[in-house]
Every structure is written in structure tokens, then in C-alpha cells.
């Protein structure tokens, strides 16, 4: 999944909530369990909530360490919501779906 860009653009069904496409960036460091889990979790959440309007970029810092600085990455894995603004960061393996949704502003905080 190194530098793999998975873009899904469904043709027909317009998203009810978001007109703009989502740009998500997932930072990982090597093929660790946590990284794989995080990617799986993210994909699942996106499929469920943002079907058709998102783009996930996965960056392996072991390959591209200089990219650390740009998004101020400390924790691994970190998910950065580049678009829509404002930028948001979610750290961890994204196993807590509820918190991920809150973090991505897809659901108002309880």
C-alpha cells in the first residue's frame, strides 16, 4: 500500500451531505499491524459515510520521512483530514468508530 492512492468516484449517487470531495491522508510507518488496521478501519468508515466523495492518500514515513514535517506528524498512525477545511487530525488505529466520526466532523460530539 505504499503510496497507493485509492480514489473512488461513484458516478451517479450524489452525497446527501457533502458536495465537495473529501481528501484524507493516512500516515503510517511500515507495514505494522496498527497501520493495516487503521487503513482497514478508515476504508470501512469512508465507505459507509462518504461513499463516492473521498480520496485517501496513504503515506509511509519510512519511505518518505521528509513528509513528516508538513503535517506535523508525531503519532503513528495519524489520519489527517486535508479537505474540507479545517484540517483535523485523528491519531490511533481508528478502532473507535464513534470517535473517528466525531473527529472527522461527521457526527456532532455527544
Amino acid at each position: 500500500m505504499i503510496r497507493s492512492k485509492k480514489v473512488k468516484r461513484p458516478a451517479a449517487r450524489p452525497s446527501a451531505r457533502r458536495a465537495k470531495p473529501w481528501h484524507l491522508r493516512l500516515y503510517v510507518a511500515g507495514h505494522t499491524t496498527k497501520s493495516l488496521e487503521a487503513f482497514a478501519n478508515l476504508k470501512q468508515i469512508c465507505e459507509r459515510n462518504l461513499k463516492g466523495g473521498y480520496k485517501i492518500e496513504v503515506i509511509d514515513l519510512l519511505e518518505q520521512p521528509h513528509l513528516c514535517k508538513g503535517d506535523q506528524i508525531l503519532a503513528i498512525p495519524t489520519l489527517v483530514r486535508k479537505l474540507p477545511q479545517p484540517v483535523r487530525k485523528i491519531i490511533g488505529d481508528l478502532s473507535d468508530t464513534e470517535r473517528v466520526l466525531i473527529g472527522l466532523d461527521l457526527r456532532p460530539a455527544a
Partner: protein
Amino acid sequence: MKTKRAKPTAPAEILPKCPTGIQGLDEITGGGLPRGRPTLVCGGAGCGKTLFAMEFLARGASQFRENGVFMSFEETEAELKANVASLGFDLTRLVQRKKILIDHVHIERSEITETGEYDLEGLFVRLNYAIDSIGAKRVVLDTLEALFAGLPNEAILRAELRRLFRWLKDKGVTAVITAERGRAHLTRHGLEEYVSDCVILLDHRVNDQIATRHLRVVKYRGALHGTNEFPFLIGAEGLSVLPITSLGLNHRVSKGRISTGIPRMDAMLGGKGFFRGSSILLTGTPGTGKTSIASHFAEAAAQRGERVLFFSFEESPNQMIRNMRSIGLRLEPLVSRGLLKFHAARPTLCGLEMHLATMFREIALLKPAVVVVDPITSLLSAGTDAETKGMVTRLVDFLKGTQITSFFTSLTHGGHALQQSEIAMSSLMDSWLLLQDIEGNGERNRVLYVLKARGMAHSNQVREFLISNRGIDLVDAYIGPDGVLTGASRVAQTAREDAEALTGRQEAGRRQRELQRKRTMLEQRIAGLRTDFESEESELQRMDDQAGTRTHVLTSERTALARLRQADVSDVKGANGSDTNGKRR
């Protein structure tokens, strides 16, 4: 071969040190921070942690050819550059030449949501990348504790920090980690439990409204180190730790002498003045002429073409020039020729450390042969006793070490405690002059003593000290049965003595003349007597002669008579004496 030959250095493998280049710190730690290990620098807000860390990197890069990474969790690169620019480090250039890499890590808790497991591999990767990209040997993490504020899960954080320090050691970089001072612990989040090799504590304390910075090496595993608290300065050259106790006394000494500018005072000091490179203390009560003597000294040195730096803590340069003109010293031309430089500052302007730092800088800039501090006591009031003593020691040592003759004036307050207040300081000084007021007969007069002058024969006499519009002069004070007299009473006493001497001389002359007269009289009398005697003698002579003649005449008459009587001559003779008659019977 059963055992290999024992290595001679096997038991005491010396811990390699990484010199910091920070003035004084390498002396305390015996060479620097432990190489290849992390060092914790902790302290409260504003005590100079970041500066310490930055200087460690900057000096490493510029002096020891060791590149460094500065990972800042608080300040941005631009801020850091601006902050240290005032301290003489051109960080921008070092960054451009890829000697130093500054990496600002920004964590905003509000932007971060935590879901599930994570680690800080990102930080590791980032640090690793930074280190490798410039081949860094030194790393600074300033302030790592910001992570505690930014990341919610402390358990993960602690585990990761432990791993980080391990990783830094494995990486072989010498790291400085800064941390905030905690209440009960050295650091707020107990970082000291991870960094066990070297812990340095910085402190900024306020005593009597005066703030002084202190540095203490709390722990240094595997090395001897100074354990005291050392005051340190943050000056234009960066940090400067003042290890008073670790300084050796091995200054070069000079046999050269330097005139005081007052001939009589030179005469009091073995005829030649002070030793070059020595330290001189001049104490005195207010208004005894300390500044005047100091100015004379400064003027004399400048006239010889030596550079003089005059620190004035009481008068502005212009005031000083004006006042000294009144006693016949023209300082202006010397100032304009650049031989004499005044540096005037109010003692209350800043703390002691700043004053000293400024002095160090000025001295380094001008490279003077003579430094005058007027008065040093102003500095003493800018700190507590023990601290200032240490600082002054350092200053004196510094000046001695660089062969600069230093002249300190010291203000003492009236009474008889003149010699008490500066005992501690005076022991640092090579020569000590004392100016004193003597009050009596409705006037005050100044006297000067040489209390001590190491290594030279010096006068033990009290000299009266006169300030006139031609300058300073020393005259012998009157020392007699009535004690030491000065001023008008000295003049009066001298006049009285002169009068007495004159009377005495006149009296003696009179007596001499009297004697002469008596002698003349006596001689006259003797002459008279002699005349009398002589006349008497001649009279007697005459009478004797007459008597002789008569006897002769009588005898001859009797002989003639006897002849006439036909008497035997012998009978006649017998008739003259009884003996003859007796014989006949």
C-alpha cells in the same frame, strides 16, 4: 594462552565527554556533557534552558564541527533565530550552511482526536530523518514536555519516551532534553526517571529584589563534577558559568611596574608604583578623593599610550571630565584619542550578572591595559554578599589572567569600621590603599595609608592627601608627641615649631655672645692679674737682689774686719757656722 593480557585501562574506562563550549561549564563537568547520551536540563520559566540548549548546538557546530538538530516543541524557527541573534549566534547562517537544522514540532490538542492504539513512530522517523540529513552529532529536544499537553494518553507517552531515550543512545547522539521544573520533582512530568546520565538544574532566584541565575549539576553518572551552585550569566557571548571554586591560581605575573600618576604615591610604593596586572583596591569614606586618585591613575596610563577602560557607576563621563578638569586633569583629549574610554551605567540599571557581562564584553572589545571600576561597592549592592563576592572574584581573576591592571575604588561608610566591610574582597587584592577623613580643629583633612602592597617594599607612613587645582599631592603629615596633625593644625604646628626653633636659635646666639663676653672679661682679668703678678715678681726680684748684695757686702765687710783683727780665716769661717764651732770642741 589462558587469559588475555589485562588491558591497563580496563577498569577505568573514561567516559567520553562532549564539550559544550559554554564558558565555565566544561570546567565544572570536567570536559562537557556525556558523549552519546542524553542530558536533562531542567529549570523554571525564563531560566535559560532553551538558550543553554541552543548554545550547545551553536558552539558544537561552529567550534567542534559537530552538527546539530534542534527540535523545538514550543518556539518556531523564526522565533528561535530572533531570540538567539542578540546573543551573538548567527543561527541563520548555521542553518543555511546545514550545520544546524531546526525543526519546529507543533502540536495542537484541539486538532487531535485519539482513537485506539498509537505510538510516536512519527517523531522517531522525523528525528531520524533530521539527524541523518545533516549528519548531526548533537540533538536538542526543547521542551519535550509539551507532548504531555498535546497528547492525551500519558501511558503511551511514557512508554514512548522511554523508547525515545533508548533510541537516542543507540543512535549515539549527544542529546540535551529540556524540561520544566516541577514542584516535588526535578521536572513536572518526572522525565528525570528516563534520563539517568546527567541532570543539570538551572535556577533563576530573586533575593532582595535582585535576580541571579544559578546552575547546578545534580547528577553526572560516571564522572566527577562540581556539585555547587554556580552563578551564571546570559550575556552577549551566550552563557557564562562562573565556577569560582574550580579556578586555579596560576596567573602569569609581571615584574613590570605601573605608575600611579602621583609621584609621591609611587614613592610610597617602593618608588615605582603598582605591579602591572595586579589588582588594587582603594577604600575610603565619601568625599575622600577616591575618584580623583582613580582618574589620576587612569590619566597617567593613558598619557603613556595605554588603553584605559573606566567603569563609572556614579558619574556620567561628561561630569567626570568636567570635575577632573577642576583638579588639573584634562581627560578630554585622551577620550577623543580613544585611549580612555568611559563606560557609565547606573548600578540599579540591571542585575549584577548583566553588569558583569557588560564589563566582560567591553573589556574584550577594547582590550585595555588598565581597568578602573568606580566604585565596585555599587555592584556589591546589586546582589547578595556571597554572590557578588563570587562574581567580583571572577572579574578580578579574569583581569589578572589577562594581565590587565585593575583599580577598584570602594566606598565605605563613616566610623571606624573602615577596614571591616571589604575584608573578603580585600583579600583578593594585591594592593590596598586607604583614604580617611580626619576631623579636628574645625576642619576635615584627608590622609592616605598603604594598608598592603604585596611583593613590594612600601611606606608605613600616613600621608596627608591634598587636592588642589594642580592635582593631587601628598605631603608628610605631622607626627609628633601630640599625635598626627593634618591640615591647618599641621601648618600651625609647623609654624609654631619654626617660631620655637627661631627663638631657640636666637637664645643660643645670645648665650654664645654672653659666653664670649665672659671669656673676654676673664681674659682681661687674667691679663691684669698677670701684669700685677709680673710687677710684684720684678719687685721681689729686685728685693732679692738687694738682699743678696747686702749679704755679700756684709760678708766681705766681716772678712775684711777679720783680716784686720788678724783672725784665722778658718776661725772666721767657723764663727760663721755652729758646725765649725762644734768641731772644735
